């Protein structure tokens, strides 16, 4: 208890400290804590890559990764909190709505990561409850071995053509915050009728937003209704026979926040790790993985279109919070799972 209070006080004092260099005390305390647990919804290979890089620094803090979908991470944390179990230190999901809830209940605490002063203003917040770690778009795509470019769908409505029945793969909004976000945007544009018709296409339902890619890459499904742009572009670079579809209606922008838990068992390590997440090294790593980040100095891969060149659809956190549950409910009703 006393340890917690001291750590808390320490954190408050250190909050006002501006840069990495001033954090010697935090660093020392972090070493004493020895580890940091990151609840993260970014795809496993990237999350593990970040953790491995962090561990290679030998700062005396071990990164413990818990990767899962946004919705499941949120439930897990609340469930553990109910039992008085505090495991997680840092949280990162694709559901801004959850972060609004966490903030309202003061479950997360303000922290401004070092080095974010020059960040794009859309990636930082005034109250510092969270900072956007990465952004991407929800991208429809197809298998180039199965479908010729001229036959591939050009618009969202093209997916409803009966010839694609049974050949589409769709991810689950209860699992993926990315998909919840994208679906709300698409419903805003085309109404629920779009998904009613989509359900009649009998798509295969996978969980993670990135989960559709392997099925389409194998050719088991031919089309993906929407996946994380970063996973898709990275696998295209790797040589999978896939191609994105950019409908004229636009692509849904998903920004994924990162925050620190108020009751983090390793509060100092949490801050050191968060600083690392927003350091140039990780920002560039994320950019190399085809993600958009707040740091203006990173170099993006050539194959990644600039955000300003994409016709974007976007919703705010409040709308996401409001429509989150009804969207999941409706999906279950229409698609059966």
């Amino acid at each position, binding site marked *: 208890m006393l340890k917690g209070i001291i750590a808390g006080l320490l954190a408050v004092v250190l909050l006002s400290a501006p840069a990495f260099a001033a954090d010697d005390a935090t660093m020392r305390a972090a070493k004493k804590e020895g580890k940091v*647990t990151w*609840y993260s919804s970014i*795809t*496993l*290979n990237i999350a*593990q890559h970040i*953790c*491995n890089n962090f561990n290679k620094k030998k700062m005396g803090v071990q990164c*413990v*990764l*818990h*990767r*899962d*979908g946004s*919705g*499941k991470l*949120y*439930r*897990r944390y*609340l*469930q*553990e*909190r*109910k*039992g*008085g*179990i505090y*495991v*997680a230190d840092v949280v990162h999901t694709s559901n801004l709505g959850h972060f609004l809830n966490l903030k309202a209940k003061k479950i997360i605490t303000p922290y401004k990561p070092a080095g974010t002063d020059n960040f794009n203003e859309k990636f930082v917040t005034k109250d510092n409850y969270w900072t956007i770690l990465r952004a991407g778009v929800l991208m429809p795509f197809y*298998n180039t071995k199965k479908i010729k470019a001229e036959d591939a769908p050009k618009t969202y409505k093209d997916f409803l053509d009966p010839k694609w029945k049974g*050949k589409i793969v769709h991810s689950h909004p*209860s699992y993926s915050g990315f998909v919840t976000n994208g679906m709300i945007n698409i419903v805003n544009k085309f109404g629920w009728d779009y998904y009613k018709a989509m359900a009649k296409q*009998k798509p*295969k*339902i*996978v*969980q*993670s937003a*990135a*989960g*559709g*890619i*392997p*099925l389409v*890459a*194998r*050719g*088991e*499904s*031919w089309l993906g209704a929407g996946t994380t742009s970063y996973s898709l572009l990275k696998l295209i670079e790797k*040589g*999978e*026979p*896939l191609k994105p579809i950019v409908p004229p209606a636009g692509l849904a922008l998903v920004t994924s926040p990162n925050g620190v838990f108020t009751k983090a068992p390793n509060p100092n390590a949490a801050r050191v790790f968060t600083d690392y997440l927003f350091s140039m090294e990780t920002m560039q790593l994320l950019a190399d993985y085809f993600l958009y980040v707040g740091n203006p100095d990173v170099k993006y891969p050539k194959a990644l279109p600039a955000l300003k060149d994409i016709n974007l659809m976007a919703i705010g956190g409040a709308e996401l919070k409001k429509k*989150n*549950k009804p969207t999941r409910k409706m999906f*279950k009703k229409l*698609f*059966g*799972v």
Partner: protein
Amino acid sequence: MTQDAQQLPGMISGGEPSATKKFDYTVIVWVVLLILLIILVANPIFQLFKESFFVSEDEAGGFTFQNYIDAFETDEYYKPMYITMMLAISVGSISLVVGAVMAWVVSRTDIPFPNLIRNGILASFVTPPFLGAIAWIFLAGQNEGWLNKWIRGLFGLSDEFYLFDIFTMKGVIFAMSLYTFPLVFIVVLAGLNNISSDVEDAANVAGGGTFHTMFSITLPLVAPSLFAGFILAALEAMILFGIPAVLAIPAGQHTMTTQLRAFMVSEDDLLGLASAYAMPMLILAVGMVWTRGIVLGRRGYATVGGKGGQRRPQKLGVWRIPIFVLCMIPLVCAIVLPAMALLTTSFMKNLGGGLVWSNLTLWNYHFILTNDAVRESIYNTIMLAIMAATGATIVAAISAFIAQRKLIRGHEYIGFMATAPIGIPGIVLAVGLFAAYTKQPFVLYGTLWIMFLAYLTKYLPLAYQTSNAGLTSIHPELEESCRIMGANRLQVFKDVTVPLFKTAVIASWILVFMPSLRELSASVLLWTTNTKVISVVIVDFYEETLLGPISALGVLLLLITLVAIAVGFRLVGRDFMRSAG
């Protein structure tokens, strides 16, 4: 046995005469067993029942019937129940036919390589069903499944043609049957081996052919085993989580187990709804086990009982080879093809690249071995399996000994208590354990202990039955003679019973160890960041559809299991898995 008996006096030479009046150990035994039963079964089930009547919120809620109304009112939640029933009946029936026919063929005919078939079936029994289901996506996917492509190539058919589609209810039934028919096989084989061939010979002499004899004589005699096998297979189909999670959810269908888990991992706190939803499963499962007990308990068949006289194989004649080939099909489908599919996929660089030299890689193995979660899960899996096997074996051995030797008052209830969890589906047990041990004052959630409790409860009946069967074959006279010579109960247990009892104990240890390696349905609700096991990592990866790494991890899990079996063979001899029945 006689050799052991001759050694007895020497073995207990260190024993001293027992004290004249001793404390009645009965009380201690009962208290310990009762506490165990409360922790493992009574409390979780009670909490499950309690939660089902409360509003679940992150802040505490009040008494309500709403959970039951929600669970049974809407079509969405009602449909999984219907699907589950349909699955149980179809899978039970298919397993019954396949398992019983194969048992008859192995036990009663001159089929070539009966041991190959028997051991193959036992091997398919230890293959994790969810792994088999994932492998079958590679084999029978509508568009890219090997079998479909092979048939297309063979007959020059278009890309649109397909014979198999694993992401359908038929696919689920098929995959489930592959891994449940061994249950029927084992039970029916045991039943068949107890019937003497004399009665069949009589039928033959009277002019009945091979198949006529089977239907009119053998079949009725093994009817109880058939029924028991059907119940076991149907129950397994009802409580399986892995296969429907892999194959039914993508097809837009929930079964009760997958729906239950969906409640448990929903963003909203649905513990109450999940608890209410678990009730019909619990009642059905307990009911099925109870019915099975009643039918098997009826011993109205005079010919059955004790190993019968000689058994002469029926001649299959020209059907010998075709029937052998037919018998190999389920084995090839359950073991050979899935193992091949996983092995090849695990070495593929790009999933869309096909099986060519340039597309081979060790990346998937590198990925899993440098992944923290995987490394930890391997450790946790083996650790938990050892803990569960040891715990269940100790509790089972002691309870079986007390029950068999009638050591304390009320010994006849001990067997009931040790086998009571048999009717509780793993996933329901997990919801109960979750409800019971995520709250103060007993917070076990987040530790390996809660999973240990789940495994222990789940596998205790299996361990008990094995120990019990082993003890039955040891004559109490041996122990009694030692008692007469002055050894106390503990000494007798240590110096006489244990050495004789060893084989059964080792068998029970391995029989718990192996399924613990791949336990999924309880683990999937109880794991946390620091307590992942291999099976949940595979399911986790499947939710990201990481097919390459899954295949590599699957190969790894199969290797660990194979090592366990090999060790088992060395220690106990090749028959140890037969006692699983």
